[in-house]
Structure formats: structure tokens, C-alpha cells
């Protein structure tokens, strides 16, 4: 159940000591993201794709569209499904096999951000009402794991969806068309250790973290999804504070997506 294996108590003391002085292990400020880069349209076989780096963390998202049946309770909407792969390539701790609880949690939180912000216009993905709709597969493949997969995965998914197409030609349904999307959600993640709460945790920080908080914000700064994780706690003030900090970060990250 634990992504990180044994945690060095020494490392924890060191990071806590640094934090008391307002410092982080890689020299960042508490409210500083690592460098973020987005590369789009990197996979020819995908309907959309993006490679996102946040510091050393590297994540690839690929979008595939297939035709399938709608859910009985929403016959006039396409469907979407989000999965996260943590392949052994990306970290010595990852093992082959079916999705772990970690991978499932990340995928579901990213999925909620996209779904609740109505980023994909599912109502425009109907082929035959009640019978055939497009299924949007959002597959997030972690390539190098140095912390903060929630934000890296969410950003990669958003960027990949932004440039995705509907492969009408492959299904003899006319010309390919852009996937109809609105404004993406922006995910912002914090971890707490000791009394400090930092944004965009790297691996070392995740390993010593007591609690984690992720919020997905829409273009108005409204809240579309939140998730608290790990076996620690936040006060109500800390949660509010996290959200206010996130609203600032989200604006900056959103600019990267709109470039």
C-alpha cells in the first residue's frame, strides 16, 4: 500500500530542520513549483498526446478514442475513462502488475478534476444517440518519478486533450475533427511535514510527508475537486490557506497550457 518503501528517519529530520529555516531540500521556496515543460503531439498513434516534466518528474499522456455504448443513464453523452500506469521503468519502487491503490487514487482524482470541470464536451461525442458514442481513453504513463504525480498527470492529460482529434476517418464517419473541449482544470498539490506546507513536493518531500492535499480549480478559481491523502491531518485554516495559494499557482500553470 505504500508507494515509497522505508523512509529514512534521518532524511525526515534533515527536511524538517530545513523547513524550520524556511528552506526546501532543493533550494525552492515553499510556494515555488519546479520548472514545468509541456511537449505536445509527441505520439503519432495517439489521438492526442503530451509529455509533461515537472522538475525530474516526467509523465506522458496519450488519448485514444473508440466507439462504444453510452451509459444507460446518459444515452446522449460520450464517456471518458482515466488510468494511470506506474511502470517499473519510472522508479525502483514500481512493480509490474495491475494498478496499485496509489495508481488508482491518482487516476480517480485526475478524472474528477477533468469531469467536474466539464473539460471534455461529452454531449458532443454522440455518434448514434443511445447506441454509439465516443469513449475517450485518457492514459497517463509515468516515465520518471520524482514526486507530484497528481499535478504532472493532470497537466499532461489536459495538454493531451487540448490537441486531441476525433478519428472520424478511421471509422468512416467523415473528416477528423478536433475533440471538443472547454477550459481545463488545473491541479495543485501540497504536502505537510512538521508545521510546513509546501507546494509541488518532490520525491524526498513525499517520502517524509504526513498529509497531502490536492485541489483542481477551474478558470474562475472555483473548486471542482479536492483530495486529502496520507495518514496525517490538516486544520481547516490550513485547507483554506492551501486553496488560496493554489488559486495563484493555477493562474500561472494555466498560462503554460494556453501558450
Amino acid at each position, binding site marked *: *500500500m505504500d508507494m515509497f518503501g522505508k523512509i529514512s528517519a534521518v532524511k525526515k529530520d534533515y527536511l524538517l530542520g530545513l523547513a524550520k529555516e524556511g528552506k526546501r531540500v532543493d533550494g525552492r521556496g515553499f510556494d515555488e513549483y519546479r520548472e514545468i515543460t509541456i511537449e505536445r503531439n509527441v505520439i503519432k498513434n495517439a489521438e492526442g498526446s503530451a509529455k509533461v516534466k515537472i522538475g525530474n518528474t516526467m509523465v506522458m499522456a496519450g488519448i485514444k478514442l473508440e466507439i462504444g455504448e453510452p451509459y444507460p443513464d446518459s444515452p446522449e453523452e460520450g464517456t471518458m475513462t482515466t488510468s494511470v500506469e506506474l511502470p517499473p521503468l519510472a522508479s525502483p519502487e514500481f512493480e509490474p502488475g495491475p*494498478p496499485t*491503490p*496509489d495508481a*488508482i*487514487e491518482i*487516476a*480517480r482524482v485526475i478524472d*474528477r478534476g477533468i*469531469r*467536474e*470541470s466539464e473539460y471534455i464536451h461529452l454531449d458532443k461525442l454522440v455518434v448514434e444517440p443511445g447506441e454509439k458514442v465516443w469513449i475517450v481513453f485518457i492514459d497517463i504513463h509515468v516515465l520518471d518519478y520524482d514526486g507530484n504525480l497528481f499535478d504532472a498527470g493532470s497537466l499532461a492529460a489536459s495538454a493531451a486533450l487540448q490537441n486531441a482529434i476525433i478519428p472520424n476517418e478511421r471509422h468512416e464517419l467523415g473528416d477528423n475533427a478536433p475533440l471538443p473541449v472547454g477550459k481545463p482544470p488545473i491541479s495543485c498539490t501540497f504536502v505537510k511535514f512538521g508545521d510546513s506546507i509546501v507546494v509541488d513536493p518532490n520525491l524526498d518531500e513525499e517520502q517524509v510527508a504526513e498529509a497531502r*492535499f490536492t485541489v483542481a480549480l*477551474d478558470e*474562475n*478559481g*472555483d*473548486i*471542482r*475537486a*479536492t*483530495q*486529502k*491523502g*496520507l*495518514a*496525517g*491531518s*490538516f*486544520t*481547516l485554516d490550513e*485547507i*483554506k490557506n492551501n*486553496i*488560496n495559494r493554489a*488559486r495563484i499557482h493555477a493562474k500561472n500553470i494555466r498560462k503554460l497550457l494556453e501558450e
Partner: protein
Amino acid sequence: MGELIKNGIRVDGRKPDELRRIKIEAGVLYRADGSCYLEWGGNKILAAVYGPREALPRHIQDPTKALVNARYNMASFSVQERKRPGPDRRSTEISKVTSEALEAVIFTELFPRTTIDINIEVLDAEAGTRCAGITAAAVALADAGIPMRDIPVACAAGKVDGVVVLDLTREEDQGGEADLPIAIAPRSEEILLLQMDGHLTYKEFEEAIELAIKGAKQVSKLQKEALMRKYKKVE
């Protein structure tokens, strides 16, 4: 929209800040070290705790603390469309965040190399099962005598027809605009679990989480009463 709240009254007759009927009974199972049966609106939940007991296989043992391993499971007949037995992605996530929320209050360092297993069976489901499950599990932990710094409790708030309301029903969950389940340590009001999906402005979020905390503290009283009744019975 606009159909779920009329004149300030919800579909099931409740006011916005009113809980559904809740019934809690501690110590209901013979085999488990601690247990709880809980009804919360249409939800029927059974929780059982086993442990602390040796963690096996040994390579999963933590030499510094007990593992806390909650398992949320829906009985196949607990929902309208029969659920295939076994864990799915939703129950895996709920099991994970439940384990973490409960671990946060347990003195795990007292029981190195052990596991504390918490089993939550949803027998009948009607929205809000994760909060009901955590609430029942907390009573089962107390019933098992697991040392905790507080007895956790959970409750959800949400937004329906533009109104922030407490403890959503199934119709409100499906037709509403947001759902925000939390778990807290009631004395310190620390937040142990917080999920949310939907659409809330920052103001609404503040309002909802504060309402959920208020609701949770009411449920906390019912937990303690249930444990008191159990202790009295035993005496």
C-alpha cells in the same frame, strides 16, 4: 434543477442543515475484536476490527508501527444493480483514504510489526456510504480497545439547487452540484479525510466544509452514546 429544495425543505422533508436519521450500535459481532452496526438514512453498515495482530507475510511488517488496513466492501445486493463481488476502483480508493484517515488518530507506534484490520461491509446503500463506513469503523476501533487520540467521525455536505446542504440523499447526490465528504477528529477539528467533487466557489466551499464539520460533531455524540450503551451493558 430547482426541484430538490422547495421553500427551504428538501425532498425527504429535511432542512438544509439537518442530518438523516442515524442509529449506532457497538459490539454487535461475536468473532470480531470490535464491531459496530450503523444505519444512516437508507445505509446499513457493519464494521469489524481485528487486531493488533502479527502482520503476515513478515516482509510487510513495519518495525516501528502497526499497519492500518481498512477494507471498504459493498455487498453485491446492497445496490440497485447487482454489484459483482470483489474490489473495484471506487472501493479501492475509498479503502485507501479510509485507512489513512483512521491511521491518523491511532497510536500505531505502540504495536510495531502488527496489523490492525478494519472491515467495512456496506449491506444496504443510499448515498454517503464512505462517511457512514468511517463513522462505524471508528466505533468498532473504540469497541476493540484500540488506543486512539480521538474517535474519528465523518459527514458530508454538498450543494443542491444552489444551496449548501448537509448529508446528501441519493437524489441530491445525483442531481446536486457538489458533494464534500470529510472525516475529522472531533475534539481538535483536524481534518482527516476530505474529498470533493462538483462545483463550489471558494465561499461555498468554506460554507460547506464548516457545515460538514458541524454535522460530524453531531454524529460524534451518537457514536459516544452508542459506546456508552455498550459499556453499560457489559458492566
